[in-house]
């Protein structure tokens, strides 16, 4: 392999690292899509640094591997910030909101869901979280609660205690004080990943997922090999994990 093509490959790798993604129509990504050896080199570089390259419909993106990476992400950054004990439940709420949102917009790439064309308001997402917790609550008894890997009761109580949003405040920041503040926390995480857009209408945020988010969901969760890998990891953690005895 020539020195020149290694140069091109590392150029693409570092551009991806800097920008998280490159548009498919961008000339910069052309050598990657057309030259098999450059593609392979970029993928090797990625694998060695604990990342992977996703070739999506809209763009080529770089994400970290599920088992962790050389690099930090904004998600791990946030996890550090919430590391103290009393905030743990709050961060679990952020995790839950992200999960619920992704499950909510998850659909086949082939059909455009309403969440994609019309957007979803924060109000609606808060309502969905409410409904999810209510449904969980009904099934929860002493036996089933034991199965939970996270203190779910605590989580629900914390959520129920919060107001939807602060009275009289129009501009709100990401905060753990209110339900909408927590939702904003979760959504800002994805917004900084450039995978969704937040619009404001009538002092209310509306979430529009970008094609890139669907690409990530599609390539990670709908991709059987990668999906099995995640499941495998989950299994391994469970064997070693603290609640393995349950």
């Amino acid at each position, binding site marked *: 392999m020539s020195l020149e093509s290694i140069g091109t490959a590392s150029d693409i790798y570092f551009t991806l690292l800097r920008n998280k993604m490159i548009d498919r129509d961008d000339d910069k990504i052309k050598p990657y899509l057309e030259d098999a050896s450059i593609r392979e080199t970029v993928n090797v570089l990625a694998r060695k640094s604990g990342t992977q390259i996703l070739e999506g419909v809209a763009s080529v993106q770089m994400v970290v591997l599920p088992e962790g990476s050389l690099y930090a992400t904004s998600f791990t950054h946030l996890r550090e910030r919430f590391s103290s004990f009393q905030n743990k439940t709050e961060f679990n709420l952020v995790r839950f909101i992200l*999960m619920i949102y992704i499950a909510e917009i*998850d659909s086949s790439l082939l059909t455009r869901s309403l969440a994609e064309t019309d957007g979803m308001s924060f109000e609606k997402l808060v309502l969905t979280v409410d409904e999810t917790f209510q449904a969980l609550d009904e099934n929860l008894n002493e036996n089933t609660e034991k199965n939970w890997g996270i203190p779910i009761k605590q989580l629900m109580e914390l959520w129920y205690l919060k107001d939807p949003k602060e009275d009289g405040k129009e501009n709100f920041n990401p905060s753990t004080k209110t339900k909408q503040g927590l939702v904003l926390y979760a959504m800002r995480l994805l917004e900084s990943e450039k995978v969704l857009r937040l619009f404001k209408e009538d002092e209310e945020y509306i979430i529009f997922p970008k094609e890139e988010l669907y690409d990530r969901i*599609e390539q990670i969760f709908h991709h059987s090999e990668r999906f099995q890998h995640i499941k495998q990891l989950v299994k391994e953690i469970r064997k070693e994990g603290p609640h393995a005895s349950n």
Partner: protein
Amino acid sequence: MLNPEIWDGYQERKQRLNPIFQFGEGMVLGEALNPYKHDILLMLLLEVFYRELKDDEGRTKDDLLLITQEIIEKLDIEATDQQIARIVDGILFSGQSNLRQPFIGKYFDSNKKAFQEQKYRYLVNDTNFRQKKLVYKLSDQSQSIIFMSREVLDELPIEFEQLYVIQLIRKGNLNSALKSIDVLLTKIKNDIYKEEDYRFNLKRDPKNVLYNARQQTKRREDFEKGLTERKDNFEKMRRLLEKLENVNEKNKFYASELEIRINQTYKYNEIFTNKVYENHALESKIRKNPKMLLGYKKRKNFKEELYENNILTGVLSEEELDVVLSSLFSPKQPIYFPFESIFIEQELVVERDEKLEMLVEDEENQEHSPRPKFDWEKIALYWKPIFESLLEDGLVKLSDIEDLNSWTKEAVELWVMFNTNKETIFTNTFKNHKDDCLQLIQTIVNLDKKYADKLQNKLFCTSVESDKSYVQYKGLIISPFVLHIKDKEGW
């Protein structure tokens, strides 16, 4: 026994009619407004329709509110702000507005012998502006309301519509031609949207789309057949317009308007042609690269396999949740420091952060501190004669004001504000403005409604008298400003 013919195309019929049946239903506006709601809504749709035709971006929710306000004034009826908000929410969403639900219409499916649901909206997001802001445009359903109400057959192909326009121009019926070319433009724009949709599907599901090869060839043949004809028709329209004889004053206006519109439509036709060719290029690219064809087959499902089976049953722990979630994130680019300087840099960063925080706090404080409250009505008393002579002469010189020294400081400062603003364009909003100059004009309009029409959409700007050196006000020296008023269009 029912005639079997009634089921012929029954679903389509009902689906087309549902948006009309439900138009404005469920909107409770009180007895005073209810009889007018259909008029208001139809006017609102028409205004959005024409704004879209004219490439006007003023179609955000705030604009919709302003349009409704204007319509209600025009109709000379009373409505509160809440009622106006209710009207706009009611055309945008069904039910509670912050949940943004679509409208649901029921129709009877004669094959399945059961009622089915159809979801639709009157106004949908205009994807052209999705990068920047939320702009609305008419949905297919509301477009058909607009067209139906003019008895224009939607199915008429573009070439026929062009011939119709040509006929109308030939007969000298320019006003009707102008309206027909609007229909033509909408159809071409719809074709552009269709092409964009096709590209979207092609990218996401190339296999399925390309399999329908027969449909493909037909599509292409139709397009190529129409291509030259369309271009010729546009040429014909232009030539006819140029040759028009014995044009009276009224028709002259229509003719120039028609010329603009023909050029605009022609431009969109070009855009459409380009889009079709781009899609052809993409098609052959996919055919050439069979790997893309394999693409995106759905194999696993996040919602069912992970979310419902694992997360909602609660078997996942924090670490396990993180494995799932963190794989969605891109790495953050690390910051590289030379090893020795890490410690120095760290300190600097901390200091800088603190300073930055202080700066940010200062800025926030400034933003939140309320604007000094002026007594606008008092200031307006000084300015009212100025605006009167401004409307008469088109300009007012600061040096001509004799009793300037009896003015308050705030009132005099507005002269300077007009100068710093460079161009002030006034539109009547009935609300408070952030800009002091606009607030002044608004106050004057509020005090005396006769100014509302005269000052609407006017542009204010300043110049400086060259032959005077300065004007004195209580020991202060002010440049000899001249305030001008101009039409916004003439600028």
